[in-house]
């Protein structure tokens, strides 16, 4: 059954690719010059935005901050791991089986938070910083109406900005992740297994999606608010709310709810527990934390509630990669959906907005 499903899925992908390539070919034949002109206009926007980001002080400072903190946390993680490794030869053997490499991203000695904590903290900041003045700065500088008077579709502007910011993020995080991996190999002397490497790549992809969410939120606010400061503060407020206050609020609500005398059966207790968890999962930062934890710590066997009965027969072994991936699939889907919804609203609002000079 499973095999046939997979076969069907593969067929779908093949036919989809075929359809697209045909469409592309038809497009090329239809108006070769026109598509090329449009493509070059789009790439011109992306190029310009990318250059803007790379030369702006805001980005240079943020990227420096991220690099500094990440390497700081990496250093503490490495010293902790190396100390543990040096203590005995047996430790090395155990380490190979225990996904030691992934610990680089999650372990800390208490002085500095781990790489994962830093990324989940600074990533949204980076996303917001890239997005919060995307549209309103163009409007305030009076360049939006000039841009709109050029023969380009209106959505090129917002798409181009999003693409440039995402590209920057992708380059930054993949190079950061791969650098960490390389340094890990050099210093620890243990190469990552293929599975560990795949987990790291998936983790980086997840980071990208998470940052894209905050980026899109920033873009959305930049479409809604005319003042860049308003949009920056609103984005930060949302970020603070989800990162700090949301879990507090849910906990305040959950305490009496979970310990209530009205609970009479196990099912009821589990149901209430699940409700609280569901509420928690409305926050994108909670989703991100859950899924990255599952990815980077294969020991995490479940993200839901487990009763003692269920764990009774389980072997305490790390999950294989595919099972970890399966575990976080809903979380990843929800994150991608949230990202897309944010972008869709921003896109829709932008397309309907009137373009006036400095209006």
């Amino acid at each position, binding site marked *: 059954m499973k095999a046939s499903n997979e076969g069907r899925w593969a067929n779908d992908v093949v036919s989809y690719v075929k359809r697209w390539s045909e469409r592309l070919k038809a497009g090329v034949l239809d108006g070769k010059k026109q598509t090329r002109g449009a493509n070059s206009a789009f790439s011109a926007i992306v190029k310009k935005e990318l250059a803007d980001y790379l030369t702006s002080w805001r980005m240079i400072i943020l990227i420096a901050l991220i690099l500094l903190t990440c390497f700081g946390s990496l250093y503490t993680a490495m010293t902790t791991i190396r100390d543990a490794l040096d203590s005995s030869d047996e430790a090395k053997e155990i380490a190979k089986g225990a996904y030691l490499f992934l610990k680089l991203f999650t372990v800390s000695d208490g002085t500095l938070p781990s790489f994962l904590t830093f990324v989940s903290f600074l990533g949204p900041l980076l996303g917001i910083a890239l997005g919060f003045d995307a549209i309103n700065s163009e409007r305030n500088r009076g360049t939006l109406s000039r841009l709109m*008077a050029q023969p380009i579709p209106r959505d090129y502007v917002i798409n181009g900005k999003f693409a440039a910011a995402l590209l920057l993020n992708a380059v930054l995080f993949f190079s950061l992740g791969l650098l960490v991996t390389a340094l890990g190999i050099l210093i620890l002397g243990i190469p990552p297994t293929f599975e560990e490497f795949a987990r790291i790549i998936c983790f980086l992809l997840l980071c990208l999606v998470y940052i894209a969410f905050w980026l899109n939120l920033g873009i959305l606010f930049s479409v809604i608010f005319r003042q860049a400061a308003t949009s920056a503060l609103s984005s930060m407020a949302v970020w603070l709310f989800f990162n700090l206050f949301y879990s507090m609020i849910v906990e305040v609500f959950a305490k009496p709810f979970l310990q209530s005398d009205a609970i009479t059966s196990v099912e009821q207790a589990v149901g209430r527990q699940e409700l609280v968890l569901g509420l928690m999962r409305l926050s994108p930062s909670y989703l991100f934390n859950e899924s990255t934890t599952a990815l980077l710590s294969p020991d995490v066997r479940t993200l839901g509630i487990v009763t003692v009965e269920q764990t009774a027969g389980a072997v305490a072994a790390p999950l294989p990669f595919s099972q970890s991936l399966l575990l976080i699939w809903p979380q990843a889907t929800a994150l991608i959906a949230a990202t897309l919804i944010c972008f869709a609203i921003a896109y829709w609002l932008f397309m309907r907005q009137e373009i006036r*000079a400095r209006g």
Partner: protein
Amino acid sequence: METAAIIELDNLCKTYGGHRAVDHLSLSIQKGEIFGLLGPNGAGKTTTILMMLGLTEPTSGVVRVCGIDPVRNPIEVKRKVGYLPDDVGFYPHMTGMENLLYTAALNGIPRAEAEKRAWELLEKVKLTDAAHKKTGTYSRGMRQRLGLADVLMKRPDVIILDEPTLGIDPEGVRELLRLIRDLSRHEGITVLLSSHQLHHVQQICDRVGLFVGGRLLAEGNIERLAQQLFLQDAYVIHVVASPLDDRLLVKIEAIPGVNKVERTETGLDVYCQTDVSAAISQTIIEAGSSLFHLSRRDFGLDEIYHRYFEGRDGREGE
């Protein structure tokens, strides 16, 4: 088909909420002419321009620019029409040249050609010295001139200038207007410019449309506009002569076509329907007085404008 209008508006309306910004506007502009859209702030000039470019959808009515419907096909229209927005902005961290090249890239012009064209245009608007300075340091006049170069990068058939002379010093205005006229005369570009500064429009426009409250009240060249708006007192002739006694005044008033004679500090203002300068000079000389100065004072647009509203208020009051 040579006389076909390049911009054609037919019963164009735009309503914002309950407010009607543009009210049944019909207008046609011929190829190669300079048309001035004249009206006070908030008359709906910018809204009309946005509708021509397809940046705003009309509530009803039809727009055709170069034979293309901007509602259906805004990109084609924007390929042929250059638009200089009111208070144009540039990316302040990029140089003037870089800003022009970016526009060229958005228009799909190859890099080498774009650079050549940008230099030509910068020369034309006299900005070659500032080509490699950041536009953040440009003065308003320079920005406006760079804006004109920016609009011309795509070699447009039509250029639409929204308040191009706003906030520039008189010398800058003269320079800009000269440039616009040259473009129209030598390159056959159709120009539509909107303004509330009547003197500027008057200097270069072939035709003017008076646009108030979303409606086109009158159109034509300045003289026609004057005739259209005031059936009487189309001309004012200023006379300086000596001696100027009441007898002479009566004689001048008796000339056919003269409506009114007013004594001013320096001489006389003769209001008349037709140009009767010759008859006036003859009368003065025959009366034995010496004529020092006689000039026809053309109505400036602001006078037309001002007097039209005065008159309209009166008419509406009736």
